[in-house]
């Protein structure tokens, strides 16, 4: 297991190098002058601009520029945001907790909903309840997250006034108090539900089908013959087997959550990584853009790796190496 993990980690390195080359080339291809934020915009003296370009290394050959960028990047120096004039790492670190909070809440909602619905459907397949759940899932799967978000804001925020329609916390509450956390939870709930509902459908159907399939297997018959109560068979024997595919979903969910976060955070004006990313594209804040693209790619890679490793841990029958 350890050996496999180590080998996979090594395998990530060429992938990251390739991605970094792509990100760097893309940033270089971006329209607009990427040093517009570094120099004094009022000083249009061509000599001054040329000096600044020389100083910042923009006249070096591309491979040298790439190498410098990577060296700084690996050492944790992501450069300075051209818009905020502070180190990129600070800007990103400020937003990460918000996105993490949103992501964890969304995952929690996904799991709770999927477990309740999937286990019910799996135990009672082809009943009215199962069909109703399948119908709900179908609609949830079909409604794009941004449409769902717009409708959610319209109904729950504007009409019913249950949730705030933007931001991550009330301005008036004091940092660190109980109300502060309550307000944050209140703000994160609606985007988390929208984000979480996105993947609930696939989890539910997967769990349902797996439970049905497993319930026809020999070990279930044996358990029944021994006189194990049905409840225990479903909750212990079958569930343990059916969780395996779900666990691997967790890793792939990383990628889905990243994409989903960009959309939901923007719609709910929730100050997280996704919103920062879109802002930096619009404002041509290249250092942030490059750092975020690398970070998100790394997370996607890590997610896939975690999925594979979890697969081996949950089901020892699967030989990875």
């Amino acid at each position, binding site marked *: 297991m350890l050996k496999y993990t180590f080998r996979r980690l090594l395998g990530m390195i060429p992938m990251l190098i390739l991605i970094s080359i792509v990100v760097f080339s893309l940033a270089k291809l971006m329209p607009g002058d990427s040093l517009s934020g570094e120099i004094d915009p009022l000083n249009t003296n061509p000599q001054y601009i040329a000096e600044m370009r020389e100083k910042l290394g923009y006249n070096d050959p591309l491979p040298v520029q790439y190498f410098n960028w990577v060296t700084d990047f690996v050492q944790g120096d992501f450069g300075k945001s051209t818009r905020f004039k502070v180190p990129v790492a600070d800007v990103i670190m400020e937003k990460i907790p918000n996105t993490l909070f949103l992501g964890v809440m969304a995952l929690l909602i996904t799991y709770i909903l999927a477990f309740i619905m999937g286990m019910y459907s799996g135990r009672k397949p082809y009943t009215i309840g199962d069909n109703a759940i399948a119908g709900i899932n*179908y609609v949830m799967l079909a409604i794009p997250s941004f449409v769902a978000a*717009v409708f959610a804001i319209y109904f729950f925020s504007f009409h019913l006034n249950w949730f705030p329609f933007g931001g991550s916390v009330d301005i008036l509450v004091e940092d660190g108090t109980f109300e502060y956390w309550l307000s944050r939870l209140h703000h994160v709930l609606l985007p988390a539900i929208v984000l979480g509902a996105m993947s609930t459908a696939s989890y539910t159907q997967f769990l349902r089908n797996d439970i049905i399939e497993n319930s026809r297997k020999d070990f279930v018959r044996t358990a029944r013959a021994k006189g194990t109560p049905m409840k225990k068979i479903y909750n212990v024997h079958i569930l343990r087997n059916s969780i395996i595919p779900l666990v691997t979903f967790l890793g792939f969910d990383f990628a889905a959550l990243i994409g989903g976060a*960009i959309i939901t955070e923007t719609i709910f004006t929730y100050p997280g990584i996704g919103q920062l990313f879109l802002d930096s594209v619009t404002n041509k804040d290249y250092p942030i853009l490059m750092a975020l693209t690398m970070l998100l790619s790394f997370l*996607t890679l890590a997610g896939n790796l975690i999925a594979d490793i979890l697969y081996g841990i949950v089901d020892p029958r699967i030989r990875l190496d």
Partner: protein
Amino acid sequence: MASSTTITQQKKPERSLSPWQIARKKFLRNKLAMASTIFIIIVTVISLLAPFLAPYLSPNPDITKVNIGSMNIQPNGEHILGTDKSGRDVLTRLFYGGRVSLLVGFSATLMVITLGTVVGSIAGFFGGAVDSILMRFTDFVLNFPFLVFVIVLNTVLYGIVDGLWVLIMVIGVLSWGGVARLVRSKVLAEKENEYILAALSIGCSPWKVIRKHLLPNVMSTIIVQGTLIFASMIVVESALSYLGFGVPQTTPSWGNMLSSANEPDVLQGKPWIWMPPALVITLTILSINFIGEGLKDALNPKSLR
């Protein structure tokens, strides 16, 4: 005499249905899938005939033109779905938006399916080093966070190529990985069959084997996958347009129309502007998914329905 002819007619061996005919019969019997198909056909026809059907064309032939005289009109007899904040008829834009959204969705799907099938079948059929290289490359593409790279690439290419085709190309180039994997796994299983060996032994070229023998057998999977991808491509287009990184704002598309919901006062007080595109997007995607599921059922020889 008459009776003998009937006997011969009865004895005549009836041709059994071909797999495609069976699939068609199964599909036609699936009510949900058929209703969805009809809906999609209606949407497609309306979109294609938008220049002739659009109700509010004559006074304002340029659909992108701002008309200050008729801003934010609520739905009434003249403007069935009202007008948006620039005084453009919502129903007219909905018709034209369908053109763009369906075009982007369809072209991107075609591109994804073609790229994925080519890469997947070559990797699966030849195996060995070709397989490793192609699949490494596929992993590489799959490992990109899709939305992030679509947005970045779209910004890079914007202005170099016509906006619509940039989007189609970018989406296509970044999302064929899944199809390639699927086709490869199917081809891997299929090429072990003896008829492939037979075809190769009588001297068929590998390309001919792939084209004539392997792909027809993988086709049903590709068709089902293609339908589901079509739905997701429409989502991608409208999501990107909604965020302002998709189809250029001057071109009406469902996503662009929905993006007016970004303004709180439109979202709260003028639902007739953003609700129609939201509903049409949802219904279209739901229908396409139903069609996909129907096809999956119909093309699966094991399903009893």
